[in-house]
């Protein structure tokens, strides 16, 4: 294998993984506080639409980002209102958000832009620019460094690096700060947190707000970096894959990062292997790309079944907390 190929694979892995990482971190935060999030897909999709629509309407990158973050947080607040304040079913709420986002983004998109649900292509000024591409260009031709570092690690946009930086950030917040300890305790034993005089609701709302911000970032990445516009159903199951990655990473930010990178790598490989013939040893024929694409889900099921290690959910996950006397 040559450096350029490795570099290319590395680059596409990072590109595919970024929205997964952001969403998986969002899921870690809400689920560690005890709130299931099946609405990642919907939050990310509607945030992506908000970024695309605002970017097209105003031509401003900061406004597009702000709109995506606002929509992400707003949906998370609906999540909190239904599930934290009113003890609604968290699984049902997640399904509801995903359906609403899928429908609403197309309805509004068709009504506002009349392009079959897509938003107009964004001008370059509204798109995220690659970082460090100057260094990458200088490294070109240098063995190893040029292909792998220059082609694979450098030249991505700010959100890719932000997602990677947020992983230790979330880890530090959860495991090295007082508020992180309280948050994790809320997901394990909310009654104890309540008895300590802390607000279970406040902590869960806080976790959901951060969750909404992260989903907003993930959605804006899809529109401002990966694509040039919003396309209906563009999240294409990424929210659920991020959820799978979070479970595969055992509800831990660093574990989730590795799972996201693994799933992203599989996706990058699957795209490359499309139409490639299997070696004769394996019987020839095309590589079953669908099998590689299904692998993340199969692996998550196998892990959940406890056949490869144990993945344990927070003890109070999914149970609304009722303050009783």
């Amino acid at each position, binding site marked *: 294998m040559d450096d350029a190929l490795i570099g290319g694979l590395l680059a596409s892995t990072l590109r595919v993984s970024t929205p997964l990482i952001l969403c998986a971190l969002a899921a870690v935060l809400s689920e560690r506080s005890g709130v299931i999030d*099946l609405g990642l897909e*919907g939050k990310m999709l509607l945030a992506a639409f908000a970024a695309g629509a605002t970017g097209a309407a105003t031509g401003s990158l900061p406004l597009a980002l702000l709109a995506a973050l606002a929509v992400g947080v707003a949906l998370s607040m*609906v999540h909190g*209102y*239904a*599930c934290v*304040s*009113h*003890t*609604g*079913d*968290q*699984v*049902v*709420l997640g*399904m*509801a*958000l*995903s*359906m*609403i*986002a*899928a*429908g*609403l983004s*197309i*309805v*509004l998109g*068709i*009504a*506002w832009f*009349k392009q079959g*649900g897509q938003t107009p292509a964004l001008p370059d000024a509204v798109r995220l620019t690659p970082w460090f591409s100057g260094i990458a260009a200088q490294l070109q031709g240098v063995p190893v460094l040029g292909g792998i570092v220059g082609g694979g690690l450098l030249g991505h946009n700010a959100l890719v690096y932000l997602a990677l930086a947020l992983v230790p950030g979330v880890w530090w917040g959860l495991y090295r700060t007082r508020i992180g300890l309280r948050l994790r305790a809320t997901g394990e034993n909310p009654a104890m947190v309540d008895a300590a005089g802390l607000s279970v609701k406040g902590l869960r709302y806080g976790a959901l707000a951060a969750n909404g911000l992260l989903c907003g970032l993930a959605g804006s990445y899809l529109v401002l970096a990966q694509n040039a516009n919003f396309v*209906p159903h563009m999240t294409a*199951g990424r929210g*659920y*894959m991020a*959820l*799978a990655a979070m*479970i595969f990473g055992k509800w831990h930010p660093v574990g989730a990062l590795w799972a996201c990178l693994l799933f992203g790598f599989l996706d990058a490989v699957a795209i490359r292997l499309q139409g490639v013939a299997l070696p004769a040893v394996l019987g020839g*024929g*095309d590589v*079953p790309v*669908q*099998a590689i*694409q*299904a692998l993340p*889900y*199969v692996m*998550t*099921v196998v892990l*959940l*079944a*406890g056949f490869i290690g144990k993945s344990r*959910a927070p003890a109070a996950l999914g149970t*609304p907390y*009722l*303050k009783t006397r």
Partner: protein
Amino acid sequence: MSQPVELPRWMDIILLPLVNLGMALAVSAVVVWAIGLNPADVLLLLVKGAFGSQSGIGYTLYYATTFVFTGLAVAVAFHGGLFNIGGEGQAMMGGLGCGLVALAAPAWMPAALLLPLMVLAAMGFGAAWAAVPGALQAWRGSHVVITTIMFNFIASALLAYLLVGVLKAPGSMSVETAPFPEAAHLPGVHQLLGALGIAWPRTPLNLSVLLAVAAAIGVYLLLWRSRAGYELRAVGFSPDAAHYGGVRPRGQIMLAMVISGALAGLVGINELAGVQHRLLLDFVVGSGFTGIAVSLIGRNHPLGIVLAALLFGALFQGGAELSFEIPGFSRDMVTTLQGLIVLFSGAMAQVAAPALAKVHGWLQPAPPAGAAHG
């Protein structure tokens, strides 16, 4: 205000769901108004599109048939204490089973033998696809919500693999199998009525609609008139109490999931044997998820589910008509409404209850003073 509120039975069963449905419709009306349309006009056109013509009624009933299957699937699992989000994947597998039988059938096989075999295959494949998450829940404690979601994606990848590589009709450009033989076509209602001398326009409505009615009655008899159903509901109500009472929870989890999957698998009969007459990729198109909304509105009761399926059938048919009538209006408004219904009738079902209880309190004559100490 988050404490559960006691409401009189009629309010709980009839008024609360209607209030929740009303809130979902109200928010939808705001969305329709926000994109510059008159909600009343839209509603009128929608009702006209769904019920205004024989053809509209045919389409409405055809959509409703699919939703009865997926709605019942969600409800049966729910009564067993399980949330089966895998209707989508189970329906795909049901279609696969039905398609495999239809394509493998020898030419001499008459429809009277082939069609029941296809129904059995659809149910069997759907049941098998639900049985795996069921078994993992029963014996390994893997949460069925997550595993059924994963199985939806696995099913869709499996179907894509089979259709692209193995089952594709030779020489065909599109990703679908060869057409089913004539004997594998479930008769359309227009054909049957035509044979009886009644004119009925050609719609996708087919005999599966009777299968849906039978399924609803069957689920009612199973859940409320049989010992197995009683035990199933007991486990759903309180697994520990049921276990103490001698019911084996594992068996009940399996039973609930297998029946649920079999019901979802029947979608394949309505869509493939009834309409498409070949196996293709996207024949489920979200009906597994619509089943969640149908089951929530129908309060997990077969009668309620049939009514809710009719409501959603009308919405889908009316929505399709609307997008022809009004340029710039997307039928995805129905998806939005579906999501809002799940939000208000499912996740926020109890939000309106305290307000209703208060209103109810005002309407009741005040108890005589001192009665509380009685």
